[in-house]
């Protein structure tokens, strides 16, 4: 029995190493797609049930907090309604001025696909979520994923009816960004595996940064093949700033704008129409 186990181990070991070497290629992708088609129909109702239970527990635990949140939201709606009216007036003025200067109108409209979060990395070593939309819904790797509160991440890989999303806090994530107000550019990188959440790097040293400053996407991408990242999407707020006299740039630790631990629904930017 032991000899058979050893032989079987060698066979499985060889096939595992071969699959690692062929990772991302057609035969492995087809196999993974087939298996994920079997798992997703089970994952979806289970994730929905777990989400509903968590919501119910949350509601029971935080009734007073909900009342307080409700009051704050009502106040915020009033402020935002006023702000919205002001911005509409500014937008109209901006449109008129651009027309006067002969500039092309710049109004990006987003084609969004709403998706439900059906799982997370089972080993808990990467910051990745699964969503229930895939290639069949027009999704492709690199597309931006949003939440009403801010940027969630980018599509990492797609199957026919599901996709993996790399969250912005994973170390493999890097997003071109700018600080609202100062317009200071920088690069926001994930830091989860290194013990924190987000770090904005390469911020010009002369820029004055403050705790609480909002950081948004700049809309820049590293190559023309990469799907467009819509500009102005909140990424996070500055928590601490670090910069020494000898450094060329300064860095800032950020808190993500969206609550990435409690995502249930997200929106994928399938297209950014200029």
């Amino acid at each position, binding site marked *: 029995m*032991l000899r058979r186990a050893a032989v079987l*181990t060698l066979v499985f070991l060889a096939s595992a190493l071969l699959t690692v070497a062929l990772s991302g290629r057609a035969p492995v992708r087809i196999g993974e797609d087939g298996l994920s088609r079997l798992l997703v129909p089970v994952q979806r109702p289970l994730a929905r049930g*777990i989400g509903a239970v968590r919501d119910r527990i949350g509601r029971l635990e935080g009734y007073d907090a909900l009342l307080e949140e409700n009051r704050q939201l009502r106040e915020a709606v009033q402020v935002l309604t006023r702000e919205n009216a002001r911005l509409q007036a500014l937008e109209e003025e901006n449109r008129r001025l651009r027309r006067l200067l002969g500039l092309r109108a710049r109004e990006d409209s987003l084609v969004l696909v709403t998706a439900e979060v059906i799982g997370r990395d089972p080993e808990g070593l*990467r910051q990745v979520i699964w969503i229930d939309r895939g290639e069949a819904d027009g999704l492709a790797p690199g597309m931006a994923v949003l939440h009403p509160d801010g940027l969630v991440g980018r599509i990492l890989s797609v199957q026919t009816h599901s996709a993996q999303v790399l969250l912005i806090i994973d170390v493999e994530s890097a997003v071109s960004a700018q600080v609202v107000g100062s317009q200071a550019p920088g690069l926001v990188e994930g830091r989860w595996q290194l013990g924190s959440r987000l770090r904005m790097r390469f911020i010009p040293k002369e820029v004055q940064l403050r705790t609480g400053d909002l950081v948004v996407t700049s809309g820049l991408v590293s190559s023309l093949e990469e799907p467009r990242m819509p500009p102005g999407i909140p990424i996070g707020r500055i928590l601490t700033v670090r910069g020494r006299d000898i450094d060329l740039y300064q860095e800032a630790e950020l808190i993500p704008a969206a609550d990435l631990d409690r995502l249930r629904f997200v929106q994928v930017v399938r297209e950014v129409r200029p």
Partner: protein
Amino acid sequence: MRRWLPARWGLTLPVLALLAVLQGTLIPTLPLPALHPNLLLLAAVARTLLRGPFEGVWWAFLGGVLLGVLDPLPQGIAVLGLLLAVWTTWLVDRILLGQGAGVVALAALLAAPAFYLPLLPYAHLPLREATLRLLALQALVHGSLLPLLFPLIRRLDGLWGEIAPIDWTG
């Protein structure tokens, strides 16, 4: 004729698929992420202790393939990790055979880091203090959880066929 597939393999895949789905949906929602157990690792270790390395290797392979579908790491890495965990379990079992429930705890305690080690480079986790702490926590979680679950797993295993002929009472 020698059989290369366990007789109970028909049930093996649905059980492992269910564990994989729970691992990807329920487990990540639990509080204290550093203390999340890996159900497929526990299953492979328990299977090895109950039925020997041959069936353990099968569970490691099938469980690893399912984990590979759900995780962002290259397909095959989880298989490597689980195979390492199965042989670590077998080694502990061989050295401490007949030493009681301590075998279960020690096997799971050592199998957990064996499973996670090949995964770390692909998860961009450098081998530094925080990662070593994570490995130690995982070892403790699995080492303390499996002895608690083992009687239940053994009973469930008995429903599939004869009770495993191993005396864990010490």
